[in-house]
């Protein structure tokens, strides 16, 4: 809907644009002769590049087999003395099966996708069916999520609020983010290769390293408002 108070401005601006362009020809569409990727098509090399670039921007990168994932996640949470972890709807229950800390389950109503059951398992400290408030998230130490896609050339993980990724606030307010990437089918080489995997109608967060600022004399400081620690766990078949 367009608000009625601005409808005359709408007409005015569009008329000004048309006058400014004076029926000139449309400039040509872009030629797009840039590369679709800068990396040879070798999955192992692409995974190594992702690892390297994530680490270069101070994400802490781990590799593990699927079977070891619960142990790795439990160890990371323990390392940071996390007492509580936010759990997005649709996160595979096994991932946190090794963690002995309080799980705070978030429920996301109405999101499309396959909506894996988000019922809180027994032992959860809060009732199922309620989204976590910003204040609850602020007192939650960590969050564990999956991702939609990871981009090797830029060291980026993209979350699109799909199952196991949570609402955007979930990966923003807690200070530790542990993100799991499936090497087999979630890693692409380049930005141009990533976009076709992403649905623009879903809210997205592209994350390349932990929150950072260089605003004070250009000294890089990790973590101003987002999570100050970012762990990325690459799940491989070996």
């Amino acid at each position, binding site marked *: 809907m367009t608000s009625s108070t601005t409808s005359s401005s709408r007409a005015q601006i569009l008329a000004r644009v048309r006058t400014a362009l004076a029926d000139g020809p449309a400039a040509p569409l872009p030629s797009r002769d840039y590369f679709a990727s800068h990396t040879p098509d070798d999955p192992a090399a692409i995974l190594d590049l992702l690892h390297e670039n994530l680490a270069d*921007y101070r994400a802490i990168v781990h590799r593990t087999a699927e079977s070891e994932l619960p142990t790795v996640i439990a160890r990371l949470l323990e390392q940071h003395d996390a007492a509580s972890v936010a759990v997005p709807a649709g996160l595979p229950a096994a991932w946190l099966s090794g963690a002995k800390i309080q799980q705070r389950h978030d429920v996301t109503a109405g999101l499309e996708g396959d909506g894996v059951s988000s019922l809180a398992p027994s032992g959860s400290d809060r009732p199922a069916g309620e989204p976590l408030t910003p204040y609850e998230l602020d007192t939650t130490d960590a969050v564990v999520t999956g991702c939609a896609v990871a981009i090797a050339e830029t060291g980026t993980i993209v979350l699109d609020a799909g199952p196991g990724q949570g609402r955007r606030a979930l990966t923003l307010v807690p200070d530790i983010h542990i993100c799991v990437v499936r090497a087999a089918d979630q890693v692409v080489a380049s930005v141009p290769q990533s976009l076709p995997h992403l649905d623009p109608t879903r809210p997205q967060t592209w994350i390349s390293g932990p929150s950072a600022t260089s605003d004070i004399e250009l000294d890089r400081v990790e973590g101003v408002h987002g999570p100050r620690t970012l762990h990325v766990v690459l799940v491989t078949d070996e």
Partner: protein
Amino acid sequence: MSGTFVGMPAFPKAAHEAVQNVTLRRNLRHATHTIRDKRAVAVAELDDWDQLREAGKQIKDHTLSRLDHYLVQLEESVTAAGGTVHWAADADEANRIVADLVKATGESEVVKVKSMATQEIGLNEALEAEGIAAYETDLAELIVQLGKDRPSHILVPAIHRNREEIRDIFRSEMSAWGRPAPDNLTDSPAELAEAARLHLREKFLRAKVGISGANFMVAETGTLVVVESEGNGRMCLTLPETLISVVGIEKVVPTWQDLEVFLQTLPRSSTAERMNPYTSMWTGTTEADGPKTFHLVLLDNGRTATLADEVGRQALRCIRCSACLNVCPVYERAGGHAYGSVYPGPIGAILTPQLRGTQSEVDASLPYASSLCGACYDVCPVAIDIPEVLVHLREQVADQGGKGHRLEKVAIKAATWVLDNPAVLAVGERVAAKTRKLHPRKIPGPGASQWTNSRDLPEMPAEPFRDWWKKNRT
């Protein structure tokens, strides 16, 4: 365009004062040279940089040539996704729309993520006049706001402040705005960032209204994109119930695929990173995730006038990366404040006079705030030929008054400042020599006024100016 630096002297006077400020010059030099060198490395990683740059230019040119079509398409997409679109012809109208939207929520405070468009229209001041407190949440903008100051750089707006100054500002001002700075706050950047984190966290958690700009708007999908580093943007875009985004009409791109170009060129040109820490994308509203209400305010404020100028319209391609600031010898010495608007440096010298016209002294002097060395063009990720536009605007200034006119006099002073500053000239000469070989440029003519001759600036004997400088500095 409002948001002017009220009482701003014309460029030469302001620049002259900036040169006297040793701290400012040292900070600026450190900043611009550091980012400049890192940028070159980040760009060199991509073998297809020239093709990406060309594609970015083509996408923007194509969009501008059918801007009416893409704006209407954008409006349809955003509306279909649950957003509301407003159109603002000028700064006053945009401010009024935003103030009314905030009032309608019943709130009297908003959190803001750094946005050039809202600075351009002076939104914070307009909201304050309506009894609405607008909290800047970008660390640098917080420093600027608490210090009752003006931003001096697009990317690092508080770059003119050093750490001791920032500590003092935090210690003395934070308590008046909310959570005070810790008593034992030192000047280590990590501690200063931590103080900002705590100070702002309470504001984010209780915020009901967020205000942002956007780097890109996708016409076919209605998606808005905000590129940032700290996470304050994510806070403002995600936690409040109502989100209001004020965006210049030139920020639209046609397709989702177009983002693949700018998401490669913007971070590398701007922060010299392969990718910035956080990019947020949202399309209208999403149930149970983020704001329930989304308003998009499309801002003209001089952009359609700029579009009408066939030479000058290329300034609308700008993606605000700030690469041109960091290579500019005049910016390095004059500082961001001398440009008298929120857009400093080479882009400010061509954008501000077009958005606002060249009736005021500071705006008429801006096209002369350059040695025309061309370094800005070389680094621009959308290939804006800034020197070409500068020369074009100089002709306009010269034509509007006639010889001896007040504006011409102030323009001459600006040109003289550049000529008389040996360091500016020396860098200008060096870069120009290199650049000209690569990009032989035409000088627009005929009818070019006397000012066009300053294209020949590098050939002028530099020695007398250096003598003058020595004499005048002592």
